[in-house]
C-alpha cells in the first residue's frame, strides 16, 4: 500500500515567479503589492453604503477612481466597481462591506486571487500600453486618476492612471505573463523618445 501523501505546506506560486521584469530609465514594470480585491455590483443606494463602509466614495460614472491611503474604488460599469485594499487581508475588508450592504441587494465577490496588479512607470509606459491598448492615453482623454476597464492585446485589463507617467494595470493571473512579455517587447522596440 502506498504511503499517504505528506501534508507539508506548499508555497503559493505567483504567475510571474522567475519572470524577468523590465526595468530601465524609460520604462519599469513591477508587481503591485498584494491586495484584497472585490467586485461589487449594486444600485446607487448600495454604492453609497459601500462607499461609507469602505472609506473611499465609489465613483458614480466613468472618470477618476476614488482613492485613499491604501484603498481605491474603480468604476467598471454603471452598477459595477472594483474595490482594492492594498496590503489588507480580504476577510477584514469583506466583513465591513457585508455588514454595510446587508440591507441592499448586491453582489460582492472576492477576486483577490483572480488577478494581479502591475505597476508601470516611466516616459515609455504610455507608449508600451498603446502597443496593445487602443484607448487614447493623452492627458485630455485619459487624465491622471482616470480608471477604466479596457483591452490590452487579447487580454482584458483594468487600467488606472496613477500619475503623469505611472499606470496601474489589473490583469487576470493567467494572462499576466502574456501581458508582461507584450509590454516588455513593446517598450524595448519603441523608437527612442
Amino acid at each position, binding site marked *: 500500500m502506498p504511503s499517504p501523501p505528506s501534508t507539508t505546506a506548499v508555497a503559493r506560486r505567483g504567475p510571474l515567479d522567475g519572470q524577468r521584469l523590465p526595468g530601465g530609465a524609460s520604462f519599469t514594470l513591477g508587481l503591485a503589492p498584494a491586495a484584497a480585491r472585490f467586485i461589487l455590483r449594486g444600485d446607487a443606494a448600495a454604492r453609497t453604503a459601500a462607499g461609507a463602509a469602505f472609506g473611499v466614495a465609489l465613483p458614480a460614472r466613468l472618470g477618476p477612481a476614488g482613492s485613499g491611503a491604501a484603498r481605491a474604488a474603480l468604476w467598471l460599469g454603471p452598477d459595477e466597481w472594483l474595490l482594492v485594499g492594498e496590503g489588507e487581508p480580504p476577510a477584514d475588508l469583506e466583513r465591513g462591506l457585508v455588514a454595510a450592504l446587508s440591507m441592499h441587494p448586491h453582489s460582492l465577490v472576492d477576486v483577490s486571487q483572480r488577478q494581479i496588479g502591475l505597476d508601470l512607470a516611466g516616459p515609455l509606459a504610455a507608449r508600451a500600453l498603446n502597443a496593445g491598448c487602443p484607448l487614447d492615453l493623452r492627458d485630455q482623454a485619459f487624465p491622471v486618476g482616470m480608471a477604466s476597464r*479596457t483591452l490590452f492585446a487579447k487580454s482584458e485589463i483594468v487600467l488606472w492612471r496613477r500619475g503623469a507617467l505611472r499606470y496601474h494595470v489589473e490583469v487576470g493571473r493567467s494572462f499576466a505573463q502574456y501581458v508582461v512579455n507584450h509590454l516588455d517587447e513593446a517598450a524595448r522596440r519603441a523608437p527612442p523618445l
Partner: protein
Amino acid sequence: MLLIRCPYCDMARPELEFRYGGQAHVARPADPATLDDAAWGEFLYVRSNPRGVAAERWRHAAGCGRFFNCLRDTVSDRILATYPAGAPAPDPAAPASGSGR
C-alpha cells in the same frame, strides 16, 4: 478603427472593445402561446437587412459591459447615434450623438 460613443461610459471608445448584438427593438410577442409556427419563426429568425440606416444592439464588452442601441448606416458604416437600451430610436435625421468616423 471606428470610434463608438458608449452611452453608459459617455465617451468615444475604440471599436475593438465592442461586440455586435444583432437587430435592435425586436419585441417579444406579448402572448407567444397564441402564435402559429410561422409567426413564431418570424419573431425568432427573420431580421431586417436594410441598405441604409439600421438600429442595432451593441455591447461594450471590454468596457462597462452594457448593451446599448445604435443607429448605423450600413452603406457608409457611419454611426449616427447611440442611445441606452430601452430608449426609443432617435430620428436618424437629427444631429448625431454617436461619434462614428
